[in-house]
């Protein structure tokens, strides 16, 4: 008998029938409207199918139906959390077509805006992770601090999330007085808070137990899916457009790209992705301080937005490092009053393709944490 056991340990294992569970399009475990069709063995996920597209708004068609000057207002809504990135990608492409060179001050303001947006997006990410692991004190702290940054957006542009502030050839208006000082204040505040976050959640033992070694994106699979941004950096790929192809004056800023190397230990798992975000917040604070202190005098735009602004016929492709990864924008103009084609390359596409492999063998309780840790931007994936 004992020999039988030794020969066929499979017989001794507890067998359970497979169950199928559809969650979504709206579920607490999902970061955004999407559908997961899970096959479960007990609480362990055997396989999964992802269905997205519940947030399709026909954005790219809408661009073609409206004037050029109202395009940034729509690029705002590409991603509600990182609205500036869409605007920046669109404006850079259109300026390349129209051969507009942006004034230095406008470039600095754009960098400040995009870094502030990165900070808000990453803070929202930290809050989502904290909620998914159920430490609600952390959620309240992070959201409270994000409000401070959103107040900066409100002071500068008048809106908190969809700041329709960038224009072709500059920005809408000059910075209000006191904005730079408040940026520096917020930098100090965030520096103070980051330590608090670490004490509270980042190195909490229960949090480590739940995140270390779970949902690993292997180093080799990153390029197979074309994953970019912090998720790729958490797996050891240091692709960052701000360094590779510096845009909008990122070349003169002195900052480093936080990266998780195999020597770091837990490579590519949930905790690595979480930690990368926190370190990126610190780096963004560094960039903000440099830019805010060195902002030059000058005019903020090449001129007021023309009522019938039409770029000449041509096309351009611009790349921006958004809070989720590489955001590309392909703009085609035929000299008409409306864009011929504006196509966005959202970084979330590659993550969506990677989900079925990632969730295999993961317990249901880790599913929300895993999905939140990928930072899926369904709004920009469906458009």
């Amino acid at each position, binding site marked *: 008998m004992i020999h039988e056991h030794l020969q066929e340990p499979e017989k001794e294992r507890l067998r359970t029938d497979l169950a199928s569970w559809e969650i979504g399009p709206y579920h607490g475990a999902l970061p955004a409207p999407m559908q997961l069709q899970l096959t479960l063995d007990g609480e362990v996920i055997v396989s999964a199918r992802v*269905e*997205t*597209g519940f947030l*399709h708004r*026909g954005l*790219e*068609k809408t661009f*073609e*139906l*409206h*004037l050029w000057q109202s395009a940034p207002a729509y690029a705002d809504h590409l991603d509600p959390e990182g609205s500036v990135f869409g605007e920046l990608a669109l404006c850079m492409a259109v300026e*390349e*077509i129209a*051969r507009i060179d942006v004034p230095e001050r406008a470039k600095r303001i754009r960098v400040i805006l995009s870094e502030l947006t990165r900070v808000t997006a990453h803070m929202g990410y930290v809050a989502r992770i904290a909620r998914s692991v159920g430490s609600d004190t952390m959620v309240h702290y992070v959201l409270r601090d994000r409000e401070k940054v959103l107040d900066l957006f409100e002071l500068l542009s008048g809106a908190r999330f969809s700041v329709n502030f960038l224009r072709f050839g500059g920005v809408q208006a000059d910075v209000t007085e006191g904005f730079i000082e408040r940026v520096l204040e917020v930098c100090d505040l965030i520096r103070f808070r980051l330590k608090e976050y670490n004490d509270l959640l980042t190195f909490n033992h229960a949090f480590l137990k739940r995140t270390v070694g779970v949902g690993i994106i292997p180093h080799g699979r990153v*390029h*197979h*899916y*074309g994953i970019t941004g912090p998720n790729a950096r958490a797996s050891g790929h240091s*692709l960052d457009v701000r360094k*590779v*192809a510096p845009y909008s004056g990122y070349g003169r800023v002195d900052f480093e790209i936080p990266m998780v190397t195999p020597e770091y230990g837990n490579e590519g798992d949930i905790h690595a992705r979480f930690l990368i975000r926190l370190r990126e917040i610190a780096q963004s604070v560094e960039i903000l301080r440099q830019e805010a202190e060195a902002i030059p005098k000058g005019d903020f735009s090449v001129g007021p937005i023309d009522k019938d602004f*039409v770029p000449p*016929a*041509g*096309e*351009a*492709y611009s790349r921006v490092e958004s809070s989720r990864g*590489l955001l*590309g924008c*392909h703009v*085609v*103009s*035929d*000299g*008409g*009053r*409306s*864009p*011929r*084609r504006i*196509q966005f*390359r959202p970084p979330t*596409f*590659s993550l*969506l*393709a990677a989900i079925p492999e990632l969730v295999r063998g993961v317990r249901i309780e880790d599913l929300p944490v895993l999905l939140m840790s990928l930072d899926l931007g369904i709004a920009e*994936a*469906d458009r």
Partner: protein
Amino acid sequence: MELGALLSKLKETAPGAVLQKQPFGRSGGQPVMSVWIETRAILDVAKVLSSGELMGGAGSWALDWLENFSVMQLDEALVASWFLRSTKNTEETLILRGSVVPSALNELVELPSVSGVWPMADPFEREAAELFGIRFTTANHGIRHWSTRLLPEGWRGFPLRKGYIFPTEVFGILHSRPLPSATGASGAGSGGEGSA
């Protein structure tokens, strides 16, 4: 690796595939090149470029990263653009161009699917297939799974085509306002640079 040499090698390996090359966009400095190729031969070209054997074989970089895939309609033709980069040397960029002409407004067109070569092309192709009415065929002329991702079940027409007429009533919901007409788009229909 210099682009001209690459193209000459490509002409040898895949004869008749490369039609012409022209600078992409208006980017100053060292221009990004876009290469027009025969659409049916895209799969062979993709295999050659992604393997990297033209760029000095093993050890050197290859165009193994399809960063972006965008389709646009110029006048009548649907122009597909493959933005290729190398994962090792991210500076090198090559843009492949191919065009197909649909016979009618609501007619499907066929385009070879490169998702076998570049796996990251899959989501882009799913979206283009649905919004542009492109049927992506695999190497053995099989047709990939057609899934309605973005549009509701039974949606008529392909919205991102130029002459698309918006329905005035969707699922019993009437539009309370006249939908924006696409007249703005047909300004000076020169068709951009790529339509040469």
